[in-house]
């Protein structure tokens, strides 16, 4: 583990047992998160963004199994034997996770109990995990509410979740996520359900707080505008794989993978009114029987014979920029990638 890496994941695979067969949701992915950075995870829905992060958190559906070569969090490693069975894995993860990893979901109500006051929900974990008295915990809750920009926190602590708007609830979740000054926050589409004006406020809040408290953030989103304005580095996922990774500038200015290029083309054109959009044809692969080769092969304009047969190896462009595509192989016919912009 490199010095400044807070999370390191090697060879993570997640399968789900279903009536139709095994869903290969995440297939042998590796990534790392550095202290204090904001990492974006972008990709088609169903590409494994949530599942990969939930398994790192030890939150997995009952029909899921995890395997990995290595998961290291904050210098603590999880042993191979810990992956035997869901129970032991979750237990290990929960103890490793402790107070130092938090999660923010798309729908704040999955996290808030509608029948308990916001104040109680905020102070409970503080009381459980620290030696603070009730009064001190309440003071800390007021501090957190102020930090996330909720006006008159003293009175609002005694209110119930339904008395808050969607944006305010998401702020409360962020306040809860911050209560323990976590080293890593995983945010799963935290602004997808919010209006743009509220989204802007929540994103600014996440950015500012991550800076102030030095927390690393993994931001799962499908909105390229959100990643561009928030993230330092970006992983692009497709069909259970990370197909490209790079800094914000590498991904947006020198994308390599045809899926990344396709995504950027989809959002670039609306800016130019007089041009037709360039969509990516087709739809994502069925993860019950994922392709043996490149997951993008059915939708890729540059696909070659090899792409269907073998998973492309990773090509390294810089310390930070990597992409898995056969076009980078010296043997690829030149001109096949002519559509690349």
């Amino acid at each position, binding site marked *: 583990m490199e010095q400044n890496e807070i999370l390191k994941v090697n060879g993570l695979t997640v399968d789900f047992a279903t009536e139709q067969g095994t869903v290969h949701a995440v297939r042998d992915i590796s990534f790392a998160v550095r202290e204090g950075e904001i990492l974006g995870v972008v990709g088609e829905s169903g590409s494994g963004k949530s599942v990969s992060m939930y398994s790192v958190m030890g939150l997995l559906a009952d029909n899921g199994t995890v395997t990995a070569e290595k998961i290291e969090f904050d210098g603590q490693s999880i042993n191979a034997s810990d992956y035997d069975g869901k129970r032991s894995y979750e237990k290990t993860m929960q103890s490793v996770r402790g107070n130092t990893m938090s999660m923010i979901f798309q729908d704040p109500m999955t996290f808030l109990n509608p029948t308990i006051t916001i104040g109680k929900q905020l102070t409970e974990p503080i009381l459980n995990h620290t030696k603070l008295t009730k009064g001190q915990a309440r003071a800390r809750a007021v501090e957190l509410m102020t930090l996330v920009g909720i006006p008159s926190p003293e009175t609002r602590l005694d209110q119930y979740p339904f008395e808050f708007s969607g944006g*305010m609830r998401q702020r409360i979740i962020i306040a809860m996520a911050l209560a323990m000054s976590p080293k890593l926050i995983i945010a799963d589409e935290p602004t997808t359900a919010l209006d*743009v*004006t509220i989204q802007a406020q929540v994103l600014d809040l996440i950015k500012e707080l991550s800076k102030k408290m030095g927390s690393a953030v993994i931001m799962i989103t499908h909105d390229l505008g959100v990643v561009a304005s*928030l993230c330092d580095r970006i992983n692009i996922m497709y069909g259970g794989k990370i197909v490209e990774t790079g800094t914000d*500038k590498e991904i947006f200015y020198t994308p390599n993978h045809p899926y990344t290029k396709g*995504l950027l083309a989809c959002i670039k054109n609306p800016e130019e*009114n007089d041009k037709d959009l360039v*969509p990516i044809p087709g*739809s994502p692969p069925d993860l019950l029987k994922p392709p043996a080769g490149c997951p993008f092969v059915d939708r890729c304009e540059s696909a070659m014979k090899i792409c269907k047969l073998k998973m492309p190896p990773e090509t390294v462009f810089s310390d930070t920029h990597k992409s898995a595509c056969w076009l980078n192989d010296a043997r690829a016919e030149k001109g096949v990638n002519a559509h690349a912009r």
Partner: protein
Amino acid sequence: MPANIVKDEVVLKVDHLKTYFDATKGLFAKKQTVKAVDDVSFEIYKGETFGLVGESGCGKSTLGRTIVKIYEPTAGSIEINGRDIAGIKGDELKSFRKDIQYIFQDPYASLDPRMTVGEIIKEPMKIHGIYKTEEEMDARVSQLLRTVGLKPDHIRRYPHEFSGGQRQRISIARTLALDPKFIICDEPISALDVSIQAQIINLLEQIQRELDISYLFIAHDLSMVKHISHRIAVMYLGQIVELGESHEVYTNPMHPYSQALLSAVPVPDPVKGKEKERIMLQGELPSPIDPPSGCPFRTRCPYAMERCAGERPQMKMYGSRQVACFKVEEENS
């Protein structure tokens, strides 16, 4: 690319429309009214896409649903092709129901899971009795499936066998089954992946070019709305506060609310996106049960003046733009 439009042919005319809901809680409670649409006027031309944007709860869907007669207007009028829809009955109502269609946001909820794709698309044809034989209907279904980019042999499959984008194509095929003249698209791409959104937008544009259909396109993704629309209206708390050519409104919004809304759109560029200055709105969206007096935006507007609380600003023309704001009025007088 949006199709060319014929400006002198008005398809839809909405005039001082109000749709209020009764929100009174109990028998002895004080009467409360949600002013979901509160005095809205605009026209849509033949072959035009008219974009409607604004935060959730501002009344976009209520406006769309009032136009298709799901809701009764509280006041004002709606004319389709010059005909007031308030009093229409019988055959005229039937042909109205045929000419105006509605596409919903959620392609999962709007298709009956127990029906095959063929049955789903045929249902409106049967209700309106436009074809006599099954063969004629089958032929039309195949043609429609091809129009929306699906295969004719999909006709016997069920909705769950399709992806989100494909399901939205099925609902578009169903919508087209009756040769409508006007389609209300209520956030038709919000639930779809970015790569699929572009497919649906292209499809809607292609259909418009071929069939000369007009769209009322409701959305909260402003860059896509701008791409597909000829003109855009910005709504706030039940009112239209700005209306103009889509490119002009997008690049140079005049109303303080439009300015804030557009400044909040994240830019998909790592340098510009991180540098972008945002106009942060203070406070929360007021309740439509008890909207502010005067200008609806005054509780959050950085430029609010005394006058803004006393009277409601009316829509005024500035070139090709209409804006309802006293500040804009004063700056341009």
